[in-house]
C-alpha cells in the first residue's frame, strides 16, 4: 500500500466517523421534542383515563377544582387558563407587531449605516434581559402606572401581561424581520425605483412581500415565547381564576397556573394530572403553531415562484 492509498483511506475513515457523529447528533436532537411529547402524553393522559374526565370538559369548562388526592372526583375545566393564554398572546402580538415591523423597516431601509450599528445592539440587548427582571419591573413600574391612568381596580391585568409580553417578544420579531428584509436583493429595490416607485411603494410592495417568510417565522418564535412565558406573566397578570373578560381585570394563563401549583400538588393525584395535561396542551399548541407557519411559508413561497 503506498502513501497515497493510506492517506486516501484515512481521509475516508475520518469522513465516515465525522458523518456518523453528525448524523447521530442530528437525529438524536431531533428526537428530543418527541420524547418530551411522549412523556407529557403519558403523564397528561391520566386526567382522561384514570380520573375519567372528558376532553370537552378540560378544554371548554371553567370549573377548575381538581382534588389534590389520588382518588380524584374534582373538576378539571381549564378553559379559564386556555383563554387567558390565547388572549394575552394575541394582545402581545397586536401591540408588538406594528412596532416590530416599523423598527425593522427603519433599520434596513431608512437608517444610515451608522445609526443602524447603534440600534441593532440595543435591540439585541432586549433578548438578554431575563424574564424575572421584566416581571419585576412590570410589577413595580407598569402596574402603578396603569392603575393611575386606566379605570382598573388592581393594576394587575390582562393588559399589563400583554404589554410585558409585547416587550419580551419585540426583539425576536424585529431581528427576524430585519434579517429577512436585509436578505431581499438590492437589485429588486433598484428595479422598483427604476419603474418609478417611491420609497414607500418599494417597501410596501417589494420588500415586505419578499420578506414575508422571515417575518412569519419571527412571529411564530415570538408567539412561542409568549405562550411559554410563566414568570413575568405570573407577576403582572394577578392570577385570578376568572375568564379574561376585560383588559383591565386580572386573569390566569396555562403557564402561570402550572407554575403556581406544580410544587405543592401531590404526585399522582388528580391535581398534578390536570397540570400535566395543561403542559401537554402547551406542547400541542406550540407544535400547531410551527405546523401552521410551515404551511403558510410554503404557500407564500409558491406564490413567489408563480
Amino acid at each position: 500500500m503506498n502513501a497515497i492509498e493510506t492517506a486516501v483511506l484515512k481521509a475516508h475513515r475520518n469522513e465516515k466517523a465525522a458523518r456518523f457523529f453528525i448524523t447521530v447528533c442530528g437525529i438524536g436532537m431531533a428526537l428530543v421534542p418527541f420524547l418530551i411529547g411522549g412523556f407529557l402524553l403519558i403523564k397528561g393522559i391520566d386526567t382522561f383515563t384514570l380520573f375519567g374526565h372528558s376532553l370537552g370538559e378540560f378544554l371548554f369548562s371553567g370549573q377548575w377544582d381538581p382534588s389534590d388526592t389520588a382518588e380524584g372526583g374534582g373538576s378539571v375545566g381549564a378553559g379559564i387558563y386556555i383563554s387567558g393564554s390565547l388572549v394575552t398572546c394575541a394582545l402581545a402580538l397586536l401591540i408588538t407587531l406594528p412596532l416590530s415591523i416599523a423598527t425593522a423597516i427603519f433599520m434596513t431601509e431608512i437608517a444610515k449605516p451608522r445609526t443602524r450599528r447603534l440600534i441593532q445592539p440595543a435591540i439585541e440587548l432586549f433578548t438578554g434581559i431575563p424574564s424575572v427582571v421584566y416581571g419585576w419591573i412590570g410589577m413595580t413600574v407598569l402596574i402603578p402606572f396603569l392603575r393611575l391612568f386606566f379605570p382598573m381596580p388592581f393594576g394587575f391585568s390582562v393588559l399589563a401581561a400583554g404589554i410585558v409580553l409585547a416587550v419580551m417578544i419585540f426583539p425576536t420579531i424585529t431581528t427576524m424581520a430585519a434579517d429577512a428584509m436585509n436578505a431581499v436583493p438590492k437589485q429588486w429595490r433598484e428595479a422598483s425605483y427604476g419603474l418609478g416607485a417611491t420609497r414607500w411603494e418599494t417597501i410596501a410592495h417589494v420588500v415586505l412581500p419578499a420578506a414575508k417568510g422571515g417575518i412569519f417565522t419571527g412571529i411564530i418564535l415570538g408567539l412561542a415565547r409568549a405562550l411559554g412565558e410563566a414568570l413575568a406573566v405570573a407577576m403582572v397578570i394577578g392570577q385570578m381564576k376568572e375568564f379574561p373578560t376585560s383588559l383591565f381585570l386580572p386573569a390566569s394563563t396555562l403557564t402561570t397556573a402550572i407554575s403556581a401549583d406544580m410544587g405543592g400538588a401531590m404526585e399522582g393525584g388528580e391535581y398534578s394530572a390536570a397540570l400535566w395535561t395543561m403542559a401537554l396542551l402547551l406542547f400541542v399548541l406550540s407544535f400547531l403553531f410551527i405546523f401552521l407557519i410551515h404551511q403558510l411559508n410554503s404557500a407564500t413561497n409558491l406564490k413567489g415562484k408563480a
Partner: protein
Amino acid sequence: MKLKKVILVALAAMMVLGAAGCGSEQKSDAGAAKTAAVSGSITGSGSSALLPLVKDAAEKFKEKNKDVSISLNAGGSGTGLKQVSDGSVDMGNSDVPAETKLDKAKADKLQDHKVAVMTVAAIVNKDIGDKVKSVTRQQLQDIFTAKITNWKDVGGPDEPIVLVTRPKTSGTRALFKQYAINDAEEASNKSLETDNSGILVQSVAQNPGAIGYVALPYLVNDKSVVALSIDGVEPTLENTYSGKYSVWGYEHIYTSKEPKAAVKAFIDYILSDEYGKRIEELGYGIGSKMQTKEVH
C-alpha cells in the same frame, strides 16, 4: 390550683432531668460522630416556607462540620415529600403532614421531624392597618369568601377589599383555611394569586385595600404591611405558644426511618437548644415551647 402547679413543676423538673439525660447521650453520640460520620452530602427539597430556616441551619451546620455538603431546593411540599419518599433526596421539607400528600403505605415509611412552628398572619395594606387593627374570625371568613367586599363593613374606610392569596396547593393557604377561616373555600375567582410569599407581601404593600396572609418569618424585617389581630389576639410567637392565636402549624422535615449519619446530625442540630434561639430570630416558633395541647 395549687395541686396543678405542683404537678406542673414536677413535670417540668422531670422533663429537664430527662432532657439532661438525653443530652448526655446525644453528646456521646455526637462525639463518636465527629470523628467518623459527620461528613458526606445531604440533599433536601420541598416547602418554600421552610426553606429559609433550613438554609440558615445548613450554613451554621457547615461552619462546624466542614466536610458536609448540603444542597437544598424549594419546589413545594408535594415535591419534597415525593422526592424523599422515592429516595431522590435525604430530607423532604413540608408544611403539611405526609399523609395528606402521599398514600398511607409510603407515608408510614418516613420519619417525621417537627422542626419548627409556623404562625400565619393576615396582613393588610397600611391604609387599612391604620384603622382596622383586629377582625373577628367570622369577618375574616366573610372577607376571604368575598361576602364582605368593602372595608367599611368591618369598621374601616370606604374602600373595596382586594384579596391576595396563595395557590390552592400551598401549605400556608392550607393552614390559613383550616384555622383562620373555618375551612371555608376562598373565593379564588375574586382574588389575586401569588406563587411566592415574598411577592405576596409586596403586592399587599402596593395595593390599597389589599389583604393577604403570610408566615411570620416574612414579616420579621418588613414594616411595609400591617399584621391583623384575629378576635383581638395579635399574631405573635408568644400568643402562638400560649395557644391564644390558633393559626399555626408544624413545619416538618421528613427523612427515611434510618437516615444517614450526616442527615441525623443535621436534624439533631436544628432541634438543639443552641439553634432554637436562631429559629425564633428568624420568626419561626420552637416546638418544645408550645404550651397548648392542640394538635395541628
